[in-house]
């Protein structure tokens, strides 16, 4: 592969891209099917802001990111649960507050701010072994969650109220999912970047929604699409010297557009 893989940092970057891409892709299935775009966006950007704030305060970035995303989940989750409550405005406000906090933290960062800037644009090439372990741990948690609670997850899709009324612990599963989302974002921040992470979460799942009626396939397909977009994006970023986050999202969105154009579901929409 034209020297692409002869450097160790690129091998690590590629591994991170494959792992992170599949984790984000799988996370996106929840966002798309449970209609949590707005909630997800707030939580993922809160994780971003929290990580930046931790850098300013000299804390471990992981702690700041997880704490901020948990805080956001605790604030936003109950709002999203209220039946009939319009989330648009509340989320719009929370989202801009979170982003302004992120920018504030960036402004307060002393020195060359390389770490901070990396968190915004992402830098797959500076991925360390520890970053990989963190991502692998997150992957294990997320995939076990899906494996263990698959039937409950399926029961909640499109019929949350009925699932709740029948005695399924909807709330516990929903909040676990929000916490996992915070973790996924924190684990992928450094590689993908805070601005674009949510796009990598949503796009592969939105693509697979165009292609399958099976939840099982949707999870698999989103994982594969996320991993492919990340690997292709990394390759593009290496060859054209562009930030990997941007090229990854570009590839993912191209995939979505192609899927929308050729979606077999277009024919089915006869209602």
């Amino acid at each position, binding site marked *: 592969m034209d020297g692409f893989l002869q450097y160790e940092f690129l091998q690590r970057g590629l591994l991170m891209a494959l792992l992170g891409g599949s984790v984000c892709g799988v996370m996106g299935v929840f966002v798309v*099917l449970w209609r949590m775009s707005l909630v997800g966006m707030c939580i993922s950007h809160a994780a971003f802001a929290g990580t930046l704030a931790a850098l300013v305060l000299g804390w471990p970035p992981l702690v700041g990111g997880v704490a901020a995303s948990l805080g956001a989940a605790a604030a936003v989750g109950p709002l999203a649960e209220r039946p009939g409550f319009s989330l648009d405005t509340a989320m719009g406000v929370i989202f801009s507050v979170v982003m302004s906090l992120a920018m504030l933290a960036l402004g307060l960062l002393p020195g060359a701010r390389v770490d901070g800037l990396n968190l915004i644009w992402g830098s797959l090439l500076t991925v360390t072994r520890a970053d990989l372990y963190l991502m692998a741990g997150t992957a294990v948690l997320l995939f076990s969650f899906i494996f*263990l*609670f698959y*039937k*409950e997850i*399926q*029961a909640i*899709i*499109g*019929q949350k*109220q*009925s*699932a*709740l*009324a*029948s*005695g*399924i*612990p909807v709330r516990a599963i929903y909040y676990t999912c929000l916490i996992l989302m915070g973790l996924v974002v924190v684990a992928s921040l450094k590689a993908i970047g805070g601005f674009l992470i949510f796009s990598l979460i949503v796009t592969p799942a939105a693509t697979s*929604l*165009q292609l*399958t*009626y*099976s*939840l099982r*396939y*949707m999870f698999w397909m989103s994982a594969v699409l996320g991993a492919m977009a990340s690997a292709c994006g990394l390759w593009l970023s290496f060859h054209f010297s562009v930030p990997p986050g941007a090229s990854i999202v570009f590839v993912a969105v191209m995939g979505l557009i192609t899927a929308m154009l050729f979606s077999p*579901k277009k024919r*089915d*929409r*006869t*209602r």
Partner: protein
Amino acid sequence: MPISKHSPDFDAPVLAELQDVQVCCGQHCILHDVSLSIRQGEFWSLIGPNGAGKSTLLGLFNGLTPFRGGRVAYAGQAVTARNVRQIRLKIAHVFQVMDIDPRMPLSVYESVLGGTYARLGLFRRPGKREHRLALDALATVGLADMAGQPLGQLSGGQRQRVALARALAQEPELLLLDEPTAALDWQAQRDILDSIAALRHERKLTVLMVTHDLNAVFHLAEKVAMLRDGTMLWQGKAEAAMQPDLLEALYQVPIVVAEHNGRKAALF
């Protein structure tokens, strides 16, 4: 013990009960000291104008509606935060049919099978029994041949029947129906009501149905409760409820009761 429409079993034990229940949202109260006692095997219909608190009342039995004063009991046991999960397993709640994305990766069969999951419990996969329950429920509502279809592609009436099948797969003792015929055409309404009548006799279910369809009320129910502005206006036997002045007081519009071939119908 067979239960027919006109011979409710008065000795049957009380299954679900409200005693002076008050539901408030901040300063504004939605239900004022409402009492209702539903015996096993009875078919109750809850009627009243929009905003009277009917859906709110329905959610009291399975803990979806938090209440301030009074007592809610199921099978003699007070419904509390601690036992509400256990009680929910025995109560199926069919909500008004909502639009879902036609691309949703969820088949009719998967949706119905989902009704068995809560009772099955966490960490257990559906087995033979659950699959049989789901197939039986689909057959009861007449949708066995649509099992593999994506749920989002069904018509409103069909989706309402799927919701009913899902509730049946739960093997409930009490069935709560929230306007099962709202927004459906005549044929779909008829199909749903026929399904409800059939399964109720087949499975000896206790039913509480919220509806605006007065003719369905008198066709199916043996007991009627009338709710207006969060207050119980009247409750009693369905035959006695079909009175113009009572219905007029409830809906505040002139209503005429006509009779055709021994069947009463309300006209406004």
